[in-house]
């Protein structure tokens, strides 16, 4: 690190503080507009609410009704939690197996998972949503299975990378001492994988919580997730109810910010670690 003198440091500090305020501005603007009557949002988005334009929580109650936000929140939570849980357990097991059992089959499987990481969703969008429909996976439980399949590429890749970096002697000792493979994996291997578990969990949570197209195509008509509910406000060709939109944006951001502030340390570390391996 290059040390610089105190005066310049102070100037940079002030500049960065100003930039931070600017950076947070968009969220602040959405927040103030969410308390304004919908008629005054598009016409004067940068003005604070006053006695004439302030409508209290009207946008929130109206928006929650219109979009079914409460159930959207519930389903998003349900799908994200269970998908991430299932992804963590299944792909870490798979990764350990692929790293430790070296046959031609495991080699091919590993490369297939790596390959799947680069392929864009549009490639399988149509066929996959049709298949989900035919196999009765077009419901909040079935979509967990889809997320496991579509998310397995990155997760298997990251877990395998980490497993390969740890020596197998400890596992061998456990196996020789009479532990079964399952016991060995959950008792010995998984605790060692903890840093990667955190990284994989965070990357998948960010992806699934915010995902729009996949849930929209697979379960969108019956079960809306938060992004689908927000997009739903745009509707067909009519104009958007800006009041409800602002309120829904705020409600969509709040859980993300709470999650961020609660696990900030892990998120920043996890993202940096994930990038280095990816």
């Amino acid at each position: 690190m290059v040390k610089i003198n105190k005066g310049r440091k102070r100037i940079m500090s002030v500049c960065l503080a100003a930039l931070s305020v600017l950076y947070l501005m968009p969220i602040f603007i959405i927040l103030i507009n969410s308390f304004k009557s919908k008629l005054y949002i598009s016409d004067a988005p940068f003005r604070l609410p006053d006695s004439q334009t302030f409508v209290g929580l009207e946008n929130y109650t109206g928006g929650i009704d219109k979009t079914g936000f409460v159930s959207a929140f519930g389903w998003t939570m349900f799908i994200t939690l269970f998908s991430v849980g299932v992804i963590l357990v299944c792909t870490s097991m798979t990764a350990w197996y692929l790293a430790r059992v070296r046959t031609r089959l495991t080699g091919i499987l590993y490369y297939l998972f790596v390959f799947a990481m680069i392929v864009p969703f549009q490639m399988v969008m149509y066929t996959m949503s049709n298949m989900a429909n035919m196999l009765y996976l077009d419901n909040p439980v079935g979509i967990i299975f889809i997320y496991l399949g579509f998310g397995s590429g990155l997760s298997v890749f990251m877990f395998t990378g980490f497993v390969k970096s740890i020596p197998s002697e400890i596992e061998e000792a456990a196996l020789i001492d009479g532990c079964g493979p399952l016991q060995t994996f959950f008792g010995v291997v998984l605790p060692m994988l903890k840093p990667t578990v955190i990284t994989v969990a965070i990357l998948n949570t960010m992806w699934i919580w915010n995902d729009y197209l996949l849930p929209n195509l697979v379960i969108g008509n019956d079960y809306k997730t938060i992004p689908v509910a927000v997009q739903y406000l745009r509707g067909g060709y009519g104009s958007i109810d800006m009041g409800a939109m602002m309120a829904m944006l705020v409600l969509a951001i709040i859980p993300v910010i709470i999650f961020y502030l609660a696990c900030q340390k892990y998120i920043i570390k996890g993202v940096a670690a994930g990038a280095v391996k990816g």
Partner: protein
Amino acid sequence: MQKSIKRYFPIFVLPTLAAFIVAFLAPFMMGIYLSFCKFTTIKDAEFTGLSNYVRMLQDKDFLNALVFTTVFTIVAVAAVNVFAFLLALALTRGIKGTNLFRTVFFMPNLIGGIVLGYIWQLIINGILLPYGVTITTDAKYGFWGLVVLMNWQLIGYMMIIYIAGIQNISTELMEAAKIDGASGLQILKKITIPLIMPAISICLFLTLTNCFKLFDQNLALTAGGPGKATTMLALDIRNTFYGRIGWEGVGQAKAVVFSVLVGVIALLQLYITKRKEVES
């Protein structure tokens, strides 16, 4: 050890593999086949050879989206990486409040694309208000809107990766260069940048693929308007599938070409930047 685990294939691998086949592998194979077919549902596919690809090349929407996506990707990738790198340099000098700044700059990255799109739609329309235009009046507003949006979202993410890279450079190397009388710019050019090539490589990869595959932000910010002027490839593919009856096969052909483009861009970029990486 291999032997004792090997027969546990059904427990360790099969669940993931089954999901992988259903959600990715089978749809992927079917997708390739369907790109050579005429179909309205996956059950009535009729092999038609290359006709979908021919129709794709004659489709103005596709070519327009390809050009728009390419130009947008170049501009956005350059801007995001330059700003992220400068911020990373500023935040690795022990300035007061570094942690707070880092927290703030990273935060937008966690917000989903749809939500980001509507946030910026309001703000950009607000800025354009005095001029009597909106974001969908002209393609250039949508273009720069998307660039600003992607900067806001991705700068913090890339900054974190650059910071990790800069912090890995040994202090001794820096001190030695300083004692030898190297200027700040020389240190940057001869030490910092060559030594963080892995970080640059990753950041370029992430920004390139993220920008090229952009969908949610595009849909929410402009929905491709005015007309189809700001429609990017991913959105055009969705519109071809679900908005134009009789064009399903062309949509699938576009998706195949799109995947190949993403793959080629990603591999080419990794190949080029990996060659530039040095051992410290």
